């Protein structure tokens, strides 16, 4: 299937120079190595290209073994801590899971004391519509304000210095099952946020909120007629299967698109040159595929849109008529690669279905889509038509399907990967889960789950439930990989010191050699890690690594929700694979910050 040729000689990274005057614009691979970034962490994915790569290089493969705990901070909450702390202007901002507190910690003082705390007005009932723990994936900093989402479908802007609420906008209704857990990004003065609730039969949307006023500038639904999806004359999907009018309505049985899911609950990347941002939509609702015949556009779809108007430029549906809950929401890492001697602006999208999509981010053409993890639900992606060739023996339905891999959380769920231009590798924290399922008639009651599938997950081949691996987009091969007992549900960060950091659900924070995956250092924290590690340069000039510990999320719900492990179908079937988690970790909510002595 290797009809293309990749060479890693020219890998370009794009950040967003005009937003942060203090940022140096890297224009070439060489420059990145030479020109250090500012050592801050202003958005969850580090930069708009979502590389999670820091040029800080104090911590290296040689000295990482002597990394020591610098200080800690308790978030005061015990649910899954999925957020990335932000570091801007010597202040660290930590967002907690529900009740979505925002802490500002003063890094200039020893022990980083609390500067202020913002406690939003939030509806506690919203906890009942959060499918997979009441997590929050972080905030974004822009022009002196912290923007983040509240579980009860509100977006807030908080003054970064004082902790005062500047505006708070209600964007949806928990009584329709909507919630918000994603980390927003800000592009061209527009805060881009999306809803969660693919398991509640919401109608997915992504909204552009004016950063200044909090007014909704546009809202792009993922289902329904083209005008709702903000598909206009400039919409040019690359593949025929995605072309046509009102597909968001016509690819559904009558009126089912209104409760068809396809929420945008995860990552957004932005390319300022093309002026396009990229995000994926979630699974269609309900999971039971028999209740929604058709390709169910635009669920499990990658969208490219303009930040100012929300207008769609192209779309590519990775999993038409998704039958395995393969959300398309995973991160899109924007890379500039030279392929077949041609410089191409691409995005790398490790999808839940196990394929690593390398897509031309200007046109939406799939350049390659090799499998990066074990998958038997699909065969391959046809690059001519863009279609995913499925394995019919693993198609879910009213019959029982066993040993379908990957399981609904996919080969990789939301847990973001990182990319090091130094090695040219993507660092993929991912899962190794298979499952058995049987569809049952799902009943729609607004504000309650709309799933219709009995699921039980278990470890995939090898018996380990998680894998940390490095993927070389040049050769489309895994370079190295490390097995983990539990799914690697934390994000990763890679530094110019060639160290990759990630955490495990049994509570180890680990550093690996980015080149060969050799374990270099590990530290046992209080609770399992599912957060996104970050690295920053402190006011003292030292490089710090920070991560939130506190197990939870979909995978950790068995501990954070106190679930009973005897019922394997708990947490949408994840409990079956995780019922022993409680033996290894307990609930927690603690920030750990490390530095060299």
């Amino acid at each position, binding site marked *: 299937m290797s009809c293309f040729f990749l060479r890693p000689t020219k890998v370009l990274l794009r950040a967003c120079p005009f937003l942060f005057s203090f940022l140096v614009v890297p224009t070439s691979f060489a420059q990145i190595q030479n020109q250090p970034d500012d050592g801050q962490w202003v958005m969850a994915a580090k930069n708009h290209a979502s590389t999670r790569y820091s040029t800080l290089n104090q911590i290296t493969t040689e000295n990482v073994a002597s990394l020591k705990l610098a200080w800690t901070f308790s978030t005061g909450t015990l649910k899954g801590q999925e957020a990335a702390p932000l570091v801007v202007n010597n202040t660290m901002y930590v967002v907690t899971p529900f009740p979505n507190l925002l802490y500002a910690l003063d890094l200039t003082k020893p022990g980083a004391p609390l500067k202020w705390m913002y406690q939003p007005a939030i509806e506690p009932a919203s906890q009942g519509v959060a499918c997979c723990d009441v997590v929050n994936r972080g905030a974004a900093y822009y022009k002196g304000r912290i923007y983040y989402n509240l579980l009860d479908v509100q977006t807030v802007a908080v003054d970064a210095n004082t902790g005062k609420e500047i505006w708070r906008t209600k964007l949806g209704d928990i009584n329709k099952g909507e919630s918000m857990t994603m980390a927003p990004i800000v592009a061209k003065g527009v805060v881009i946020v999306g809803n969660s609730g693919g398991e509640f039969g919401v109608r997915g949307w992504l909204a552009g909120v004016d950063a200044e006023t909090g007014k909704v500038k546009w809202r792009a639904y993922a289902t329904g007629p083209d005008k709702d999806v903000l598909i206009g004359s400039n919409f040019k999907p690359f593949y025929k299967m995605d072309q046509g009018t009102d597909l968001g309505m016509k690819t559904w049985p009558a009126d089912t698109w209104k409760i068809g899911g396809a929420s945008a609950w995860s990552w957004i990347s932005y390319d300022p040159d093309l002026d396009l941002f990229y995000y994926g939509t979630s699974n269609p609702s309900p999971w039971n595929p028999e209740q929604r015949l058709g390709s169910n556009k635009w669920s499990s779809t990658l969208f490219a849109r303009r930040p100012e108007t929300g207008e769609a430029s192209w779309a590519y549906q990775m999993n038409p008529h998704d039958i395995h809950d393969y959300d398309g929401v995973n991160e899109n890492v924007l890379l500039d690669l030279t392929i077949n001697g041609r410089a191409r602006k691409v995005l790398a999208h490790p999808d839940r279905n196990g394929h690593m999509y390398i897509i031309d981010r200007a046109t939406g053409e799939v350049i390659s889509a090799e499998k990066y993890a074990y998958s038997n639900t699909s065969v391959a992606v046809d690059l001519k038509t863009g279609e995913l060739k499925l394995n019919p023996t693993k198609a879910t339905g009213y*019959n*029982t399907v066993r040993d379908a891999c990957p399981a609904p959380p996919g080969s990789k769920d939301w847990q973001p990967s990182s990319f090091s231009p130094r090695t040219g590798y993507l660092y993929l924290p991912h899962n190794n889960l298979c499952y058995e399922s*049987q569809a049952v008639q799902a009943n729609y009651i607004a504000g309650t789950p709309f799933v219709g599938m*009995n699921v039980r997950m278990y470890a995939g081949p090898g018996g380990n439930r998680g894998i940390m691996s490095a993927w070389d987009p040049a050769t489309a091969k895994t370079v190295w990989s490390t097995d983990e007992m539990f799914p690697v549900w934390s994000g990763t960060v890679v530094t110019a010191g060639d160290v990759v950091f990630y955490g495990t659900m049994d509570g180890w924070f680990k550093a690996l050699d980015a080149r060969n995956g050799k374990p270099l250092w590990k530290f046992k924290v209080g609770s399992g890690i599912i957060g996104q590690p970050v690295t920053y340069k402190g006011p003292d000039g030292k490089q710090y690594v920070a991560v939130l510990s506190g197990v939870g999320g979909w995978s950790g719900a068995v501990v954070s929700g106190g679930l009973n492990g005897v019922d394997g179908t708990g947490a949408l079937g994840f409990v079956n694979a995780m019922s022993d988690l409680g033996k290894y970790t307990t609930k927690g909510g603690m920030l750990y910050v490390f530095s060299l002595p």
Partner: protein
Amino acid sequence: MIQTQDVLPNVPNQEEDISNLERVWRRGRGLFGWLSVTTHQAIGMRYIVTAFVMLLVGGIEALLMRIQLAKPNNTFLNPDLYNQIFTTHGTTMMFLFAVPMMEGMAIYLVPLMCGTRNVAFPRLNAFGYWMFLGGVLFLYWGVFTGAAPDMGWFAYPPLSGPQFTPGKRTDVWAQMITFTEFSALCVATEIVVTILKMRTPGMTLNRIPLYVWSLLIQSFMVIFAMPAIVVASSYLLSDRTIGTHFVNPAEGGDPLLYQHIFWFFGHPEVYIIFIPALGFVSAIVSANARREVFGYPAMVLSQIANGFIAFGLWVHHMFATGLPQIGEAFFTASSMMIAITSGVQIFCWIATLWTGRPRMTTSLYFVYGFIAIFVLGGMTGVMLASVPLDLQVHDTYFVIAHFHYVLIGGAVFPLFGAFYHWFPKMTGRLMSERLGRWNFWVLFIGFNLTFFPMHILGLKGMPRRVYTYPPEVGWGSISQLATLGAFIIAIGGIMFLANVFMSRKTGSVAGNNPWEADSLEWAASSPPAPYNFEYLPVATTRTPMWVPREERAFVTGLRTDRREVLVTTLMDAEPHHRYVLPGSSIWPFITAITVTIGFIGSVFNPWYIISGSILTFFGLLGWFWPRRSTEIRDEAGVRA
């Protein structure tokens, strides 16, 4: 000295022998004695009486259903009650009436016809009866406490499964199956051994009466078919009580597997019921046509073929489940094949009547009724074997009509004939022939009035097992007709009961052989002595009773001071050795109680299997406590 046998050999010590026999075979006194009985006449009669009571109960249930269906949108029964009643009706008729009744008749008649003193395993025989009674009582405990099964007598999962039939209703049904199948297997075993090893000398395989042949075939069928239903009901029971997944498709089980296993039993079950009835017909025909049944080898061979083919056509109960066409064609052909073997037997009987001198007794009336009804049922059976026709009439009143035609026509009419035929043997008095003919005509007319219209109902689209129907479908007047017929049948039943009770008191005394019939049971007195014969009669021809008295032979030399019988060889029935049968014992009853405790308890708590087993161990300990040697290898004398 009371002589009971019609002819006695001229041997010394006759008086002593007879008084010995009287003493040795005497039943114990009081309740204890009653519970300890192991003689085949007593056990057989208990089966017959219990099964007859079940027939009446099942009949009452049928009447309740007919009342409910007599008019559209009737509210006489609510659906819950109706479902319980039709399930109990089917279950009762199949498991608690038909099979046990045939078994009871066999237990009563086979040793007599084979010219021996008792069945091969008298205690097992008693045990089998108590188990059967346990099943009866358990099911009707359910009926009276609202736990009657309500998922149809074949209990298809998932409807019968834990999710859709809450409570203990299915469990009661499934465990009742275990009880009755246990009992059926006990009976089948002892009948087979009795027939094969305890025939009187001279009764070679080709001299066995056709009735005994039918029982031999039926018993083998029981042995092969019943384990299947025990498996099916155990699957169901363990799915329900201990959470297994035999028939849960989602966990790799298969509801169709249950159907296959069930019908692998269920279809032979029909033949298990009516093959003995064909035996009745043969016996009645030969006695009343006053010649032996025409085409003895053809009769025997077609019965055996029936027995085999019966196992190869269960799938015609499942044509609508969506089978591959080639499989359907195979089962169509095999299902129709049974018509050949059945046809041959019908032809033979007609030929017998044709070439004989029919004496129109009531039992022969019932045989003619049988031929009319059964042949019609056979015709509809051929229709049901055809896949396209079956798709239309399957699970409709057409099928109801069909199987009542073959089961009532094929089994109950011969059975009534058999009652009239053997009643004098069992009680010593003849039943009233006059009332008998009335009885026949009322039953015959009532039957056809009830069930013939059901063919039409089926063609008009009435599915079975509906508790009511709206007026606009136009089933009302036909249903009313059927209900009327059902009450006429009930009148017929009452007439029969009246005849039984009156004749027991006032019927004319029968004598040993009122019909001048041909088989050996007529050599014994009416009713037979507990030991059947003073001296076992020897069969010198296929029709030993038509051998002139002076030419008859007897077995002498068997010891009479213990329950000694003669074991003969399988093929030629040559004397092989003496065997002492066990006498009365309370242990079969006690063991049956312990097993019952285990079975019933396990429905509520699986641990009862353990405690029941331990108790049963003690029961068996008592049962098998060593006695003196039972076997004496010694040729018994045969004396002409």
